[in-house]
């Protein structure tokens, strides 16, 4: 019976306006939610459990406020919820975060880890493959479908099309938006989640070799030119060649 872990991260709502105050992003008035791809990771993890039995543990590395997304995961149907944190941590670079995750996941005795293909804040997509490397496991990224047995057969886009790839366990699987619906919490789930206890764990983290120097807004684009009517399309074609030099 597989011990399934799903990684979830709290991020600003993707509809939120992001403002920079001084040289840092100010998230004080932004609604925080679970990173969208993590919802696909949860769905895939629960499907894995349903196909093979086992348990699903949702895991986040974050401060106390990130317990909300663990409760959300619980309401959707995971069995256990774990938060890893140490008050001495502030900014965790990829090396520090993956060390923490790797230590925790080994402690949990996981057979398979699901995560999002990229977090909505970093957009990086480093965690899945980096964690797999640290654990000495295989991985697959941008996964859009999965079938479960002793291994997981995933569908993912490759250069020449969509590949079905056999991923032997243990492995880390990073999930993209799949062609399936993610389940939403029901009333019973929400009630259960209210009572659920978050298990708090700690881990050792190496010092970060990356420091945030500043945040800034992307330079505003100069206002563009607007034309009325379909006939103006020929003028735009000319400008693309003569002014923008892109043709």
């Amino acid at each position, binding site marked *: 019976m597989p011990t399934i872990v799903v990684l979830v991260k709290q991020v600003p709502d993707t509809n939120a306006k992001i403002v920079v105050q001084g040289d840092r992003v100010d998230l004080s008035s932004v609604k925080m939610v679970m990173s969208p791809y993590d919802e696909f990771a949860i769905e895939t993890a629960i499907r894995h459990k349903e196909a093979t039995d086992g348990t699903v543990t949702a895991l986040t590395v974050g401060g106390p406020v990130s317990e909300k997304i663990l409760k959300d995961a619980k309401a959707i149907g995971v069995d256990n919820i774990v938060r890893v944190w140490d008050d001495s941590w502030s900014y965790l670079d990829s090396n520090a975060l993956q060390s923490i995750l790797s230590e925790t996941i080994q402690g949990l005795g996981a057979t398979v880890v699901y995560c999002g293909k990229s977090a909505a804040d970093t957009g990086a997509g480093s965690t899945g493959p980096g964690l797999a*490397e640290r654990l000495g496991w295989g991985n697959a990224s941008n996964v859009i479908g999965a079938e479960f047995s002793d291994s997981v057969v995933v569908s993912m886009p490759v250069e020449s099309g969509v590949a079905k*790839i056999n991923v032997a366990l243990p492995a880390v699987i990073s999930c993209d938006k799949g062609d399936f619906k993610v389940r939403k919490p029901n009333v019973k789930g929400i009630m259960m989640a209210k009572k659920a206890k978050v298990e708090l764990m700690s881990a050792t983290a190496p010092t970060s070799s990356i420091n945030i120097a500043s945040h800034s807004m992307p330079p505003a684009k100069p206002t563009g030119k607007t034309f009325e009517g379909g006939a103006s399309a020929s003028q735009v074609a000319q400008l693309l060649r003569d002014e923008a030099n892109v043709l």
Partner: protein
Amino acid sequence: MTNMIVIAELSKGNIHPSTAELVTAAHAFGGEPILVVPCTDASIADSVQSLSGISKIIAVKSDVFDGSDSSGWASALDSALPSGTVLCLATSRSKDVAARLAARRNISVVQDVIRIDGTNLTSPIYSGKANQTVSVSGDAVITVRANVFDSAGNDGSCDVSVVDASGDVKTAVQEIMQRASTRLDVSEANIVISGGRGMGSPANFAHLEAVADTIGAAVGASRAAVDTWDEIPHSMQVGQTGKTVNPNLYIAVGISGAIQHLAGMRSSKYIVAINKDADAAIFQHADYGIVATWEEALPVFQEALSAMLG
């Protein structure tokens, strides 16, 4: 001084031209790079021998580079590479390999870099709604977005040394469902033309394909188009839950410009929007906006382009 190492990007068995941009990026970070060419046949390295500003070329030959297993790639590269700061292109495969290589070496990875100022690296965060600049101490693995840095020149002449490597492959391809069309992928193209719900029907995407054929573009779509029409596959979707593209030119047709769509294309160098609604949000991000239906605008556009380029 640490070594600078550029890993050439492979595309369909050849070296992707954006590899020359990585050389410029390496110079912006810290010096003349070693160019590493992952390959199954070392002769592909011939095409980069004339790149300016590289100190040597190492062709790393291994069967693993024929496949897509990132463990195989990272372990083969790791065995052949000296220590140092590594740069590669921010494509989905190379981002995976970069993350593994960094983890293997216990160093950090910084993805999707769009500006390098010494050891200060800037990447978009929150789907491009802000930028983050980090300072790096020590070695790191860095992926760089395409079309951001100028290409290095072509007046060099570097010898190629060939190293055989083996990698630790952990996954096995069972089958590949070929992409139905042979069209360019949106994430690889210099020009992308995308259609949204405003196209009215999937059959009307033929009009976008006609323009795409004229200018060598890839065809993309909004999520509304992908969700509404089975004929439009998710692989074409641009945006937060689709692909991030960074072409020289992005043409949005019948797309309203929702924040989640902008997340995937706002960093395009030039943006053209064709929309019948003058108040559509996409116009706030367009360099050239055409307020018209596509039925009116596209035939004119197509004819002008054909006349210009034909």
